């Protein structure tokens, strides 16, 4: 029962067992007992005086107690700081959503009643609206990062046809690609490809990859999305002829807040949360993700999900 109690406490801290204060307390206790026992055996071998043995054992016990206490307290502080940070981000993000939704709805009302907004102010209003949406997206990303770190991602998986799902998203990106003067193509090598995923999360992931591909490809470039079957998996590849990722940055590309040097030159804004979230969400949904890239030539980002039979029911995760 006590073991279960410790596991549930560690779950509350959301740290691994070896960083979990209650578990470390028990480990340090065991080390203390073992240390005292070993000291008494060694001391008895080197001294016949019981008083000397007692002193040696007591000194060792005191030493181990101090070390153990320091270790447990330090990890306790770390775990508390991590929990407080997580709660803080959560509260602040939720609080930010209130004024952001007020601005969003009031702007919507204003833009719908064109009589109120003079025609020459419409562009300005459009900019305010875009920035409002950007802030909302940023807050949503922060909340999602927090949920991933605390292992609280909300998934609502259903069966979807990945081929038509991706095709629809690509079609939605045609105006953006045209605006960027990039050629956007969709190739489907196999259909239907049925997978079991949270469609809202996968939409976010796929749009993020499409957005990056177009954004980091210069005018006149090409972005190709390919959907194929690879053994028992469905695979989506997003290939661009863009700026690519420098070899030295490739190992860090899925890290939180990381942005490569050449990406910063093309686009100064951006949080470096996108690809971190892409990877975390794909993995949380049971898929895998990767990329191949050459600086100056372009990149291919891909993800795969196990294929499921469209006829059978899938047990929810």
């Amino acid at each position, binding site marked *: 029962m006590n073991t279960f109690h410790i596991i549930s406490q560690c779950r509350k801290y959301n740290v691994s067992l070896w960083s979990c204060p209650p578990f470390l307390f028990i480990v340090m206790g065991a080390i203390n007992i073992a240390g005292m026992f070993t000291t008494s055996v060694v001391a008895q071998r080197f001294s016949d005086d019981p008083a000397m043995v007692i002193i040696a054992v007591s000194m060792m016990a005191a030493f181990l107690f101090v070390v153990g206490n320091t270790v447990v307290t330090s990890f306790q502080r770390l775990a508390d700081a991590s929990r407080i940070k997580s709660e803080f981000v959560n509260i602040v993000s*939720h609080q930010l*959503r*209130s004024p*952001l*939704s*007020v601005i*969003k*709805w*009031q702007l*919507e*009302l204003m833009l719908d009643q064109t009589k109120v907004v003079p025609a020459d102010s419409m562009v300005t209003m459009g900019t305010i609206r875009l920035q409002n949406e950007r802030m*909302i997206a940023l*807050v*949503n990303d922060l*909340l999602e990062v927090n949920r991933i770190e605390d292992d*609280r991602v*909300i998934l609502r998986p259903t069966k979807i046809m990945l081929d038509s799902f991706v095709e629809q998203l690509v079609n939605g990106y045609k105006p953006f690609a045209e605006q960027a003067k990039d050629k956007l193509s969709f190739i489907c090598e196999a259909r239907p490809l049925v997978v079991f995923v949270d469609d809202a999360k996968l939409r976010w992931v796929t749009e993020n990859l499409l957005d990056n591909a177009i954004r980091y490809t210069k005018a006149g470039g090409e972005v190709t999305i390919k959907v194929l079957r690879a053994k028992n998996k469905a695979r989506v590849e997003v290939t661009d002829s863009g700026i690519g990722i420098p070899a030295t940055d490739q190992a860090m590309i899925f890290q939180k807040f990381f942005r490569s040097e050449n990406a910063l030159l093309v686009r100064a804004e951006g949080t470096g949360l996108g690809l971190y979230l892409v990877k975390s969400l794909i993995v949380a949904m049971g898929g895998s993700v990767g990329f191949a890239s050459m600086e100056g030539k372009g990149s291919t980002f891909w993800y795969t999900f196990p294929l499921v039979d469209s006829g059978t029911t899938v047990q929810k995760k």
Partner: protein
Amino acid sequence: MKKLLIIEDEAALQDALQKTFTAEGYEVSQAFDGEEGIKLAKEKIPDMILLDLILPKKHGFEVLQDIKADDSLKNIPVLVLTNLEESTEVMKAIELGARGYLIKANYALKEVLAKVKDILG
């Protein structure tokens, strides 16, 4: 004319919702706290209730519980409109009988309107 009750403490959000629904021909009643919400629900017997969760005097979950415990109100569909998004909150709202759960920051007024029309049929 369909009757709508909006329970929301933020005046600017109330204003946006009221203008949107009135323009669409709904008869809108507004409550700015949980207690007033229950009182108005009993008085007006609306066709649908839009409910915020963090409310003064009475939390949205308690309001929802009270609505579902009252024979004259329990069949009124309740759409939760909030900025809280934790799985525990969504689950609790659905368990307590809410017909839908929308995150205000992620939905345009037009989408809220479409959802209400969809529920009211």
